């Protein structure tokens, strides 16, 4: 086991303890505050998912919000069906008379949970295969995924009778998990979300320290060199895209549970860019740092957007520019560099310092 792996495991345990015990204590176990924090934790999952594809493999996926949205709508469809007597109300308003076939299987929670993971993975995988077989890389990955996101959101809003359109899906029931009615303002629900995040992070830490993660880093630096060692680069890139999309879908499902509605704004460009910012602020090389970045920026937003209602997006933009300019590896890079200086190794700086966006 490498020392970096050990550091990450220690960091993961500390993170888990703080989130599971520290945060609720500080919040005085207040239901409203816990719900707010559970929202940050759900967003932390989508941020760590991006760090897998962007930080590890160098694939900047700007369509992350689309896969997040798929998960969130999967859950919302299930809860909407549970809340309605047969046909959801908005369908009747849109002259849809029978339940569309895509909706039918969402009666089942098991199907919903699987769909929330697998549909994003499948669609992410389709786009990935098309891109990576053609050896598309660098900024073109960002452009293609962004274009997909825009098209997907438009399509979704246009299908008002099936998706609730601009209004999204509201008036949802509460989820019933093995007979447990999930109240989003309860400690139990907070623990559920926190548990999901910790499991996702443990998975991410393992993945980045596995040979799979190593090959992804190698591909990120020089994909051709990896090919000459016999690695099927396109397959590796496609799989990490699928994994990242599935995690984003998972985060989306939790997000719907937290907020008790699903909205097409979850699939917006600005939401996708926000994910990139969280990930960059925390540090895209580490899944834990990316999760941390999501929590910190969202806490800041929670505090500051009350004060600067109009100016918040400007502030977020400025934060991003500053991070890119002065700490391209995010909080994680800052910490690991200071740690190295403290240990007096005196190594020259990491070569990836200068490069924030993939350049090939």
């Amino acid at each position, binding site marked *: 086991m*490498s020392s970096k792996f050990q550091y990450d495991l220690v960091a993961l345990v500390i993170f888990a303890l703080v989130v599971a015990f520290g945060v609720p204590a500080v919040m005085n176990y207040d239901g409203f505050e816990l719900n707010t924090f559970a929202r940050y934790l759900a967003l932390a999952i989508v941020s760590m998912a991006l760090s897998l594809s962007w930080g590890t493999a160098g694939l900047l996926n700007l369509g992350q919000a689309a896969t997040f949205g798929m998960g969130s709508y999967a859950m919302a469809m299930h809860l909407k069906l549970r809340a309605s007597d047969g046909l959801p109300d908005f369908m009747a308003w849109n002259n849809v008379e029978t339940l569309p076939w895509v909706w039918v299987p969402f009666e089942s929670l098991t199907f919903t949970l699987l769909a929330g993971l697998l549909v994003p993975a499948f669609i992410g995988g389709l786009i990935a295969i098309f891109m990576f077989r053609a050896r598309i890389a660098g900024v073109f990955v960002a452009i293609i995924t962004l274009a997909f996101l825009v098209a997907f959101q438009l399509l979704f809003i246009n299908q008002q009778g099936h998706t609730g359109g601009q209004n999204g899906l509201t008036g949802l029931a509460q989820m019933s998990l093995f007979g447990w009615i999930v109240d989003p303002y309860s400690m139990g629900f907070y623990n559920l979300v926190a548990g999901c995040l910790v499991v996702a992070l443990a998975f991410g830490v393992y993945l980045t320290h596995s040979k799979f993660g190593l090959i992804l880093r190698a591909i990120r*630096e020089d994909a051709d060199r990896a090919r000459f*060692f*016999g*690695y099927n*680069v396109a397959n590796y890139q496609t*799989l990490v895209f699928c994994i990242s999309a599935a995690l984003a879908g998972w985060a989306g499902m939790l997000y719907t549970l937290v907020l008790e509605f699903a909205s097409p704004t979850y699939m917006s460009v600005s939401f996708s860019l926000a994910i990139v910012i969280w990930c960059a602020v925390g540090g895209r090389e580490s899944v834990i740092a990316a999760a941390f970045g999501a929590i910190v920026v969202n806490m800041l937003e929670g505090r500051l957007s009350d004060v600067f209602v109009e100016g918040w997006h400007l502030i977020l933009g400025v934060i991003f520019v500053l991070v890119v300019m002065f700490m391209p590896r995010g909080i994680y890079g800052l910490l690991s560099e200071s740690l190295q200086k403290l240990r007096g190794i005196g190594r020259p700086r990491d*070569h990836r310092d200068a490069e924030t966006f993939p350049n090939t």
Partner: protein
Amino acid sequence: MEQLQVTDLQVEFGGLRAVDGLSFSVQEGEILCLLGPNGAGKSTTLDLICGKTQPTAGSIQLNGVEISQMLEFRRARLGIGRKFQVPSVYKNLTVDENLSVARSRRPGMWSALTRLSLTDARESAAILDRVHLGAKRAELAGNLSHGETQWLEIAMLIAQDSKLILMDEPTAGMTIQETERTAKIFRSLSDSHTLIVVEHDMSFVRTVADRIIVMNRGAMLAEGSIEEIEANEDVKTAYLGH
């Protein structure tokens, strides 16, 4: 047995024929040295064999299998390894990590998902001692000197353990002692590997080569043992008059 058979190979770069009607074969366990003046097409020939460049005509057969249209990674899996003229290691990865990437007996994703990143490096640790990088295992490859980088890439090719290894100027930038050590390693490699080596250092070539091919303007100029090559008049004019 013939391991590699190249027939009438040709590649054109916008009118320039970098390799032009080249034919040769390599026997299993042989060390073939490829010589020639700058721009003769030596590196391009290696590029064609490993799949970096697609030929415009001709055939390349590895153990009787036509590989000239295969993707790079498939050729690597069939047993072709390549060291590049410009040392090509992962500068952002440590020496150990580089070795782990290179050790690609099981290049599939399932095996990669079920192994830790350094497991493969541990298994091939002895290779680093052989190239005197044992003390630098945790160092980022980007911090190595030029000579050490050459060593690292050679170590990576040993770890990759391909049947046919293509070495492009492996001793460039090395001291005399280092070059001698490389020659020893190459000789011991040839017990179980076939090597095609592009080199300019004649004393190195003299030590390692079983056979030599001299290229000029993309075609074969001469072929034979070191003595035959050194006595060849065409070779002398090509080197003096290019």
